[in-house]
Every structure is written in structure tokens, then in C-alpha cells.
């Protein structure tokens, strides 16, 4: 702690900074510029100051109402996704084989959903869940359970949650598995000698060792689910009504559908700040827990 940090190494990062400037910083600055202006097309912009932000933060306006609704949907979706995928991913990782040919086979099977492009995942589930020709939708309806994701809000939510769990639980499982593989056998032998229960082994050996990878898993899944666009757009298109319209879907509707670049830019700036703040809180809390456990 007493040795000063050598910051000169940052100079070697300059090439990356240049690439980031073109891929992220310049677009971000442009979005900030758009957010304080209005446009009627043809690259003509008119100064609007903080007008869009005032609308955005006022739930009684059209813009503010739809933003807050979409934001709550997003937060709910991310909370459900994390509550299901993290414990399920840990459970899958714990039940995976530790050696032999079955390891490679399991890894390939688990990696398969992640290799499928997002719009293809959406298309697969859109067809799979249809009540007329889809295997899932048809069977569920035949069992007497009303299920129609195009007309019923609950069905639409169940479809996109199950789709996301199918698509991304393996990411959590693979990360946890990597954490579990790093535990030396001596730890398990010591636990056996002490007569530790399965639960005690999990709480005192496996979970602390998975802490770092779980931090990455939670951050990745939160960010991905909070910024989700393609899959729900392909499956439900944001419907029925607006019941699965998340912020990213609403942004595209605003920016590309209505060509309201100013409103969409203000919305994306606030959206971006929320993501940044939540990720910082996640990261800080989990690294502190990590440091406390040593």
C-alpha cells in the first residue's frame, strides 16, 4: 500500500483509447449533442436545452410515462433473470462431472445455446412457443393451460424469461465451473477429515472460491438483461400492448420509428447513467465482499 502506483504504463494503452474514441466516445458525444436539440430531418438541428430531460423525468408527460414504464419493466426483468440464472447456473456447475470424457461433452452441450445468434434465438422461440404450430405452445394449450404470448402479458413474460434462461444460464454455469475447477483436492480432503456436511463444503469452500467468477457472471448477466433488445423484439415486438417494451426497444421506436433523435438521445443518456451507477454499485459491493473473505 505504501509503494506509489506507476501510472506511466497507461501510455501503452493509447492505441486502444484511439479505437474506443472512434467506436464509443465520438458516438456518445454525438448523443449528448442530440439530447439538447430537436431535429426535423435533413441534418437540421434546433436548440432545445434541457427540454427533453424535463419531459423525460416527468411521469405525466408522454415521454416520461413511457420511459418510467419501460425502466420498471427492465428492472423487473433483470431481477427475475438474476434470481433464476445465478442459482441455477451454480447448481448446474456443481452437478457437472469433474473428469473423464463427460466433461468435454457437457461443456459442448452447455456452450451450444450461447453460440446461436440472438435474432435466431428469438426466431426459434417465436416458433417454438406459437400455440398453433409451436411444440411448446401447442402442448401447453393441449394440457388445458391457456398460453398465448401474442395476446396475454403473463404468457409473453414467461416466454422471454424462459428464453433468456435457456440462452444464458450456461454462461453462469461455465464461469462457476471454472471457479470450482480451481479448488485443489486438498480442500475437499480436509473437509472430509473434519466431517463437514455437503452444505458446509458449499458455503465454506466452493462459494468463496466462486466469488470472483460470480461477480463477473452477475455483472455480465445484469448488463446484458438490462440492455436486452433483440430476443424480445423478435418474439413479442414489445407487446402485447407495451407489456414487454423494454427501454432499448422503446429507444429504437423513438429514434428510428418516430425519428425523434432528441428525445431518444436524452432517454439513452439517462439509461446509460443508470446502467453505469448500478454496475458500479454491484462491482463495489462484490469486490468488498471478496476482500473481506480474503
Amino acid at each position: 500500500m505504501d509503494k506509489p502506483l506507476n501510472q506511466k504504463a497507461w501510455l501503452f494503452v493509447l492505441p486502444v483509447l484511439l479505437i474506443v474514441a472512434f467506436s464509443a466516445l465520438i458516438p456518445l458525444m454525438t448523443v449528448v449533442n442530440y439530447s439538447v436539440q430537436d431535429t426535423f430531418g435533413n441534418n437540421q438541428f434546433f436548440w432545445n436545452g434541457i427540454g427533453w430531460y424535463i419531459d423525460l423525468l416527468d411521469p405525466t408527460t408522454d415521454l416520461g410515462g413511457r420511459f418510467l414504464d419501460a425502466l420498471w419493466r427492465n428492472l423487473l426483468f433483470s431481477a427475475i433473470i438474476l434470481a433464476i440464472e445465478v442459482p441455477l447456473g451454480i447448481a448446474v456447475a456443481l452437478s457437472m462431472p469433474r473428469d473423464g470424457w463427460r466433461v468435454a461433452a457437457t461443456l459442448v452441450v452447455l456452450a451450444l445455446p450461447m453460440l446461436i445468434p440472438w435474432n435466431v434465438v428469438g426466431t426459434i422461440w417465436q416458433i417454438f412457443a406459437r400455440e398453433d404450430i409451436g411444440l411448446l405452445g401447442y402442448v401447453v394449450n393441449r394440457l388445458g393451460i391457456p398460453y398465448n404470448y401474442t395476446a396475454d402479458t403473463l404468457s409473453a413474460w414467461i416466454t422471454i424469461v424462459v428464453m433468456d434462461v435457456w440462452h444464458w444460464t450456461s454462461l453462469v454455469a461455465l464461469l462457476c465451473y471454472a471457479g470450482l475447477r480451481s479448488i485443489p483436492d486438498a480442500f475437499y480432503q480436509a473437509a472430509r477429515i473434519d466431517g463437514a456436511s455437503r452444505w458446509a463444503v458449499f458455503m465454506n469452500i466452493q462459494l468463496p472460491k466462486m466469488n470472483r467468477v460470480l461477480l463477473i457472471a452477475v455483472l455480465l448477466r445484469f448488463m446484458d438483461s438490462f440492455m436486452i433488445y433483440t430476443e424480445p423484439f423478435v418474439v413479442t415486438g414489445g407487446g402485447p400492448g407495451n407489456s414487454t417494451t423494454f427501454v432499448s426497444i422503446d429507444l429504437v421506436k423513438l429514434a428510428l420509428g418516430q425519428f425523434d433523435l432528441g428525445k431518444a438521445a436524452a432517454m439513452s443518456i439517462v439509461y446509460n447513467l443508470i446502467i453505469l451507477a448500478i454496475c458500479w454499485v454491484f462491482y463495489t459491493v462484490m469486490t468488498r465482499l471478496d476482500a473481506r473473505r480474503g
Partner: protein
Amino acid sequence: MDHFAWMAWTWPTAAFFAGIAVALATMTVLAVRRPETPRHGILGLDTTRGDRLFLSLLGSAFIHLGWLGLVGPDLTVASILSLLYAAAVFRWV
């Protein structure tokens, strides 16, 4: 300047980004000239000057947004609060 027309620059936004660029440049010069060790602040976190700048900027953005949403469109008080908040972050966090 025509090459940058698509970015729709305005003087206020240009001044805003120039301010952030100056802050980052100052931090870089400080980091080279006066290397530091991370400090353990009141939040229980080890923070460097860069971390404190990040927290100040992010917090200031939320102070302005909160003021806009809860109080009104005059942001003078929000800006003063942000400066006080930034000073507190650099002093104690």
C-alpha cells in the same frame, strides 16, 4: 467544420466536454508528476484520484437529474450542490 456537422455540436455541449477533457488531462499530469497510493475513505473503499473524479461526475449527473425531476428546471442550486458533493468526495471518500 462540415465534416463534423453530423455530430450537431453546440457551444454548451462543446464547453461541457472541454471541461471533462481538461479534468482528465489534469488527472493524467497529476498521476505522472505526483504518483499516489489508493486511500481508504469513509465508504470503506480504496480510491484513487481517478475513482473520486468518476464518483464526482456520476454523482453530479444524478444530482442534476434528481433536481430536474423533483424540484424544477432551474439547475443553479443543483450545480452548487454538485460542486459541494465533488469537494466532499475528494476530501473524504
